[in-house]
């Protein structure tokens, strides 16, 4: 089962971190990435730019309305994600617990969402050359 681990942090507090704290966080992520890659279960892991760089597109009367900022102003914002192929939820929880934001920071959390998978027909379409270029 594939799971997406969505990392939420408080951006303003994150910005206040010292150089050492940033480094400690990064090292924590490197450790998880290396370990999951070695086990062959890491599919993706990337940090995102802060929500000040976010753009939201909504449909209104068949028109795309573009606004500045994230979809909702929340206390914690999406900061990055992992996609891991785990045996079950318990394994995904154990990896989430190892992420620096979950165990060390105190200003973040990790949401685990099972990935539903794409129906075969759409996969076939996505793989056809006319859509891939």
């Amino acid at each position, binding site marked *: *089962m594939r799971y997406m681990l969505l990392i939420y942090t408080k951006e303003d507090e994150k910005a206040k971190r010292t150089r050492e704290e940033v480094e400690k966080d990064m090292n924590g992520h490197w450790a998880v990435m290396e370990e999951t890659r070695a086990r062959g279960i890491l599919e993706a892991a990337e940090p995102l730019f802060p929500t000040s760089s976010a753009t939201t597109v909504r449909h209104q009367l068949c028109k795309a309305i573009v606004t500045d900022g994230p979809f909702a102003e929340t206390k914690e914002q999406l900061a990055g994600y992992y996609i891991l192929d785990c*045996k*079950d*939820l*318990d394994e995904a*929880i154990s990896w989430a617990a190892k992420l620096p934001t979950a165990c060390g920071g105190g200003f973040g959390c990790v949401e*685990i969402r*099972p990935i*539903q*998978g794409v*129906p*075969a*027909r759409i*996969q*076939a379409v996505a793989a056809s050359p006319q859509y891939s270029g």
Partner: protein
Amino acid sequence: MVEAKAAVEKVFRQESGRIIATLIRLAGSFDLAEEAMQEAFASALTTWPEKGIPDNPGAWITAVAHRKLIDHGRRERTRREKQDPLLYETPSVQQPEAEALFEPVAMNYPDDRLRLIFTCCHPALNQEAQVALTLRTLGGLTTPEIARAFLLPEPTLAQRLVRAKRKIQDAHIPYEVPPISQLPERLASVQSVIYLVFNEGYSATAGDSLIRRELCAEAIRVGRTLCELLPGEAENLGLLALMLLQDSRRDARTDKEGSLVPLEDQDRSLWDQERIREGMDLVTRALSMRGVGPYQLQAAIAALHAEAKTPPETDWEQIAALYRELLRMTPSPVIALNYAVAIAMGEGLEKGLAEIDRVGESGELADYHLFHAARADILRRLKRHEESAAAYREAIRLATNQVEKDYLQGRLDQLSQH
């Protein structure tokens, strides 16, 4: 015919938890397992009157349900093969294991109830869902029964069960006993579900009293199962002991009119001596093992009350000491309140009152009716009637349960006669 029907009911009562646990493992799905079990019980109702009751009725039901799962797996495969192969690649239901495993039905199924308990009480499910799922599967209670017990509309409860089962399936919550490293934490969640069920049944809130009695019985039954499956965990024994000792006073807690009778005024000859004996044995055994915990301490307190033949014989000093230990382990203002009451009864009312007022300083218990009731009771014993009456009035205002309100009102009325 009547005999066969009774046998079917008996198997359901006593073994459905174990049967469903096995079937869920075989099917990889709660819904399929439930369906197969229902069908198997239906078959029993038609088959047993004709062919007689099998030697091992539980194994018979499991085997028949198992066969139904195999048939279902076959039909499902055929249906899928006929379907547009492009439509869905991801199977909606985990396929039963290799067919070879399914063929000759072995009469010896391992006990899967421990997996079932841990899955039902998985922390990724909210506690309401944990409770509902545990009662539905392990307890074999029907959805209407659970709804009635918790005073909830049936659709609400049904919805809760559907959501929980769906999350287990979608998020792949494992059907496994957790590894040793996670056991303490996971076990705590199981114990708290069981104790919550017990308390729901024990607390004198409104509702169908028969169903509430059933809830207590069910919690004790699941508690027993947990002890049977993990006998090395002292807190499992502590929890069972606590429930048995509390339940032993069931018949003495209310009078014929349904009014609450406080511990002090209870007719102790109505206490269930068998439960007390069993509870005491369990506490003693648990305390001799490693790992004292909150359930054992609470059970030990309940045991001291049970041991006292008359209220003055209660060993309040020992009770206060146990509350102090409990407070150290799990600090909470409610335990601090109980400690203060024990001090009042053991070491002196004035000292206890000072302790209660100290607990009250934080303001955390300001809206807790039992805080005011306990204060009122000590003031009453000190013959400070006016202050006592004021505290009773505050307790009555805050109490939500009519039985308790009535009891407190009775106390208040007695005061004004002085």
